[in-house]
């Protein structure tokens, strides 16, 4: 049963098209993440689904019900905002029960639901405190609780963690994942942080300029990016790009020729100008690189040790190359090292359309 269906959704602010004919089908219980740089339209899409913005065209269905013209409260959705948007003058309990009281729900029922939400989110001790007396993480949990108590079908998160410090963000990320696991509700989560996207999402929608670049599972997006933009956006440290030419199963660039043996073309193998992308973590060095189809000798320009692993910078075919090595690898500037990669891990994009080949 489809939980949320977005059909031919378009939104225009005057002449500017913010969302361009989007179609998304989110099954029951899925955790979909809308990922993209700021201004790509992800928050706007979320607000459209929530009903806070009137769409210019297209329909929105929740639980197979056409809610395009419904008020947000009539759509069975709960929303958690980046600024938490808690009612500052009310206690935590007040915040949780305000929506229910307004819907004239029985006192006992309200009490039960608030208790359940407080127990799930471990905020029982905070019930009588005012938002001002809570930490960022606690406030976020109360914001989630506000949707929880209303037994909504769909949870909408609008960059909920971006106001928190790194450590708290990691803790809360895990909590949200556990929450999703327990509740099995459909969740739509907007963020610009790819780590959150990769860790939380069942599927990710990479967005740019109001258009969905790719809607797929994290591993699919990571390994087979649909276009150059997605490849460049996902993965940290960033993917290496080489501009060159494909000539029967080889790729020549800046004086180097890489074999393309084993590369799974989507369609028929083609030739012509293209981009080759290879992720730093897919480049092996030293002995492991020996029997790889593509190998080269390079000099290490800079070394960036990061504890768990080390990032080495070199130059290949006139282009700076990022190589990720094991944290303990003994490498220093000036070393000549052997590196190589398996073409099947690489990605090829058409020069002009930047679409995956």
């Amino acid at each position, binding site marked *: 049963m489809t939980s949320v269906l977005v059909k031919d959704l378009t939104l225009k602010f005057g002449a500017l098209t913010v969302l361009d004919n989007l179609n998304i089908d989110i099954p029951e219980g899925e955790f979909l993440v809308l990922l993209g740089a700021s201004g790509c339209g992800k928050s706007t899409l979320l607000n459209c689904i929530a009903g806070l913005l*009137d769409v210019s*065209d297209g329909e929105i269905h929740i639980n197979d019900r*056409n*809610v395009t*013209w419904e008020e947000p409260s009539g759509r069975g959705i709960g929303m958690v905002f980046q600024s938490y948007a808690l009612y500052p003058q009310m206690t935590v309990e007040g915040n949780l029960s305000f929506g229910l009281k307004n819907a004239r729900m029985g006192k006992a029922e309200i009490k039960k639901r608030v208790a359940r939400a407080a127990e799930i989110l471990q905020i029982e001790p905070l019930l009588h405190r005012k938002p001002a007396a809570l930490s960022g993480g606690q406030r976020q949990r109360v914001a989630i609780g506000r949707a929880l108590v209303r037994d909504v079908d769909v949870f909408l998160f609008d960059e909920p963690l971006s106001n928190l410090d790194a450590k708290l963000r990691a803790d809360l990320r895990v909590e949200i994942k556990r929450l999703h696991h327990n509740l099995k509700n459909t969740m739509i989560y907007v963020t610009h942080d790819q780590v959150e996207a990769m860790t939380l999402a069942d599927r990710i929608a990479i967005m740019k300029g109001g258009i969905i670049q790719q809607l797929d599972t994290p591993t699919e997006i990571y390994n087979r990016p649909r276009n150059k933009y997605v490849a460049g956006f996902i993965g940290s440290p960033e993917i290496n790009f080489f501009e060159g030419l494909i000539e029967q199963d080889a790729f020549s660039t800046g004086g180097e020729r890489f074999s393309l043996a084993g590369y799974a073309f989507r369609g028929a193998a083609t030739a012509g100008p293209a981009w080759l992308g290879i992720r730093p973590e897919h480049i092996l060095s030293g002995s492991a690189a020996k029997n790889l189809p593509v190998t080269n000798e390079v000099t290490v320009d800079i070394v960036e040790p990061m504890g768990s692993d080390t990032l080495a910078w070199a130059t290949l075919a006139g282009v700076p190359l990022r190589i990720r090595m094991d944290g303990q690898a003994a490498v220093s500037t000036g070393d000549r090292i052997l590196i190589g990669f398996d073409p099947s891990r690489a990605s090829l994009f058409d020069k002009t359309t930047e679409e995956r080949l």
Partner: protein
Amino acid sequence: MADAITPRGPKPRRRFSRANVMLYGTLIVIAAYYALPLYVMIVTSLKGMPEIRIGNIFAPPVEVTYQPWVKAWSEACTGINCEGLSRGFWNSVQILIPSVILSIAIASVNGYALANWKFKGSEVFFTILIVGAFIPYQVMLYPLVIILRELGLYGSIWGLVLVHTVFGMPILTLLFRNYFTSVPEELFKAARVDGAGFWGIYFRIMLPMSLPIFVVAIILQVTGIWNDFLFGVIYTKPADYPMTVQLNNIVNSVQGVKEYNVNMAATLLTGLVPLIIYFASGKLFVRGIAAGAVKG
């Protein structure tokens, strides 16, 4: 069971939905209540007396005459001397300019000193000033009469200028202090490191940055001083009466029948200067007052 129209695209909002009608309705009615007096005054000030007596005051003038304005400006009499409001106007201007300059200069320095150069007791004086802003003027009227008499300023324009400076100081100082405290601290520290002194920082750094708050202060003081009646009546003699006091005299000293058109023209003339400033400064007037008041 496809319903007649499947909801698609933006929710059809009826142009005259009940909420919209109610919203714009109340706004228009209230706007009429607010605009009514100005409209009545303008309309009546352009009518001849006969037309006023028989017609109703809301009807636009049948034959427009500017005679009431001319009379109000140069001929309306209080007792024997009939110079109209012009003398009051120039008196008000003579009172206004020194008062505005003096009160803003002192208040801005106060605010600046309070914001950045706190010295022992400076907060005490500031608190007294703020508490002073709420003390009704009546309590300090007579002592000021004595102070001005000792300074030999009583009854002169400069006496009134001093009174306006004194009574304008609390609110203005508060405004400037709030503004200067919102100036980033680092800017002030950097200037100190560069060796700038109290006045150096004030003139070269603080002043250039504080144009918006100066405009607000000017707007507040100009409307406040121009519209003052209480101090004008007590601290000046008839020859120096500001426009508001003279307006009250003209409208109240009656030669035979009350000339409403001249009186309304005179009232409009008195209100002209603050109105022009208000319409000219528009948004700034609003933003400034809100900033000063809300933050205060």
